[in-house]
């Protein structure tokens, strides 16, 4: 719990405004700003590989953020998020290919279209709870994917749809170095928007529904409205992320967006910490980096002493998969509340250092 006790002594607030800032202390705000500035320099220092990892983390974290609104804040589990991601991707590709609308505008438009579709699939949410709702989202996943397979005009059917590269006012961005800034801008914007949302009226309403929907209703919160709204919001960010992904890859294909990916999105927010905005980012990074680091590890084991001892060669791929699963399990055993929670505890520890209680 990051209670009031954890704000360093001497940091007094004199106005309510000062008490509602995103960052609890000046230092943390400065750190955040410095972090963003450092990220801006990333393309200068990182090779294509790391840059693409960063871009992927950025894109997926936007989608995960949307899912966290739904799961973490409103308390409704969805395993259809990948389908909305894909819908955003196809929509943006479709819009930018077929209408005289530059990609710059196609991306938010795709977000809005996805949000509207999310709204439709959110209707059952007004009535269903828990797992029953999960299955409704599973249905959304299947129904949307089925639609993509059928609607050749929209998705290209068995041929992947192509998406234009990102362009703004006639200037086309090419390559990861430039696209990185697009993603960074979207990540920043999304995270700030959601942070703001959560500290204002509608955000509180969502959390209230999660914690106690019956009393939320009696406090004047329209359950139906907010439950469907949170679906729309989740879909919106999934759509934006999907659109960004489409214009990054420049092709959009159904491949790889089944339930497994929906579950992966879920993994991101659970590992990061449900209901934590920063946790979402951390969780996404974890989920993206885990296989990469295992890859790296297995590469370095190859040909080494351990390799010979265990005669790994092809087995290593299975060991690696097993390791990925086990690390996730071990991580959750060690930190069931997610990375965000551990992060807060570390911060608390240092603030109170050297007193442990």
């Amino acid at each position, binding site marked *: *719990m990051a209670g009031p006790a954890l704000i360093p002594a001497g940091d007094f607030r004199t106005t309510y405004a000062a008490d509602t800032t995103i960052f609890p202390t000046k230092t943390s705000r400065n750190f955040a700003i410095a972090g963003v500035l450092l990220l801006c320099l990333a393309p200068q220092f990182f090779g294509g590989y790391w840059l693409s990892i960063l871009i992927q983390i950025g894109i997926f974290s936007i989608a995960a953020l949307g899912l966290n609104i739904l799961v973490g804040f409103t308390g409704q589990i969805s395993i259809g998020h990948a389908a909305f991601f894909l819908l955003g991707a196809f929509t943006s590709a479709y819009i930018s290919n077929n209408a005289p609308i530059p990609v710059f505008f196609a991306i938010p438009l795709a977000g809005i279209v996805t949000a509207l579709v999310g709204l439709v699939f959110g209707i059952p949410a007004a009535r269903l709870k828990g797992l029953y709702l999960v299955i409704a989202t599973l249905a959304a996943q299947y129904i949307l994917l089925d639609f993509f397979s059928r609607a050749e005009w929209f998705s290209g059917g068995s041929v992947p749809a192509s998406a234009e590269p990102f362009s703004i006012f006639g200037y086309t961005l090419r390559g990861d170095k430039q696209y990185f800034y697009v993603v960074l801008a979207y990540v920043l914007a999304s995270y700030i928007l959601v942070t703001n949302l959560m500290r204002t009226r509608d955000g509180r309403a969502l959390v209230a529904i999660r914690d106690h929907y019956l009393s939320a209703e009696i406090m004047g919160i329209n359950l139906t409205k907010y439950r469907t709204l949170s679906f729309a919001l989740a879909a919106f960010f999934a759509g934006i992320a999907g659109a960004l992904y489409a214009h990054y890859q420049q092709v959009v294909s159904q491949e790889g967006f089944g339930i497994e990916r929906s579950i992966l999105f879920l993994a991101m927010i659970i590992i990061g910490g449900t209901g934590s905005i920063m946790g979402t980012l951390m969780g996404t990074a974890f989920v993206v980096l885990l296989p990469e680091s295992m890859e790296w590890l297995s590469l370095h084991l190859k040909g080494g002493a351990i390799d010979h001892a265990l005669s790994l060669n092809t087995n290593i791929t299975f060991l690696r998969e097993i390791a990925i699963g086990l690390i996730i399990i071990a991580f959750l055993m060690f930190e069931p509340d997610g990375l965000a929670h551990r992060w807060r*505890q570390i911060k*608390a520890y240092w603030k*109170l250092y050297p007193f442990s*209680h």
Partner: protein
Amino acid sequence: MSDVAHIERPSPSVVPPPLLSVRNIEVVYDDVILVLRGLSLEVPKGAIVALLGANGAGKSTTLKAISGLLKTEDGEVTRGEIMFDGSAIAGIDPDKIVRRGIFQVMEGRRIVADMTSLENLKLGAFTRSDREVDADLDMVFNYFPRLKERTGLAGYLSGGEQQMLAIGRALMARPKMILMDEPSMGLSPLLVKEVFAIIKKINRDLGVTILLVEQNARAALSVASHGYIMEQGKVVLDGTADELRDNEDVKEFYLGGAGDQRKSFKNLKSFKRRKRWL
């Protein structure tokens, strides 16, 4: 702790070994929140002991520390020991503690909402394997006839009915000791009296030792032989029920006014006297 204000009294010549003794325990929630700061208390076999204290003093935490349920709330006994019937029980799983004979009636009823009253009562007897379960069921229904009438799911019972069910469920376990967390909460005056009569009765007839946490101090002290008063994680005062009843502070803060003149809730002054023992 040294700052416990003991009321002087002649020590009885034969001291029976306490059934439960809690020695100097410290409890931390969530690795950081220190709630009990060196609390000690003793419950003699066959006695009713009352544990009183303001909201947030840590009464429920104390009970959960004894029953082992603290674990389920990210809490931990970090110091001190808890002895029950001659053996240490701190750190043991709650279900094992129940099998050793301590049963806690938790604050806020905590009945199993999606089962019937009967099933709830049967669950109370989960750790028993004797044949008298059915007889005890009748006993409980005798105490609380209302429960027999309500055959639907327990979750739809009214607050007070749920409270009766919770107490009945404890009786079904036939424990050596019951930890009761605010059994009178939400009960009508008539039922409060009944509940305390039942507490007294099970203590006397069944020989169950009871540690009673109550806000209704007047009623609690009327059944208890001994009482502890807690503030902010420590015992600040203890003594026999009579001694406590006569203590001025206890009168003022727990019994409702010094002297026997009850002051009206309507005409309260806003100022508050500082408690003497703080």
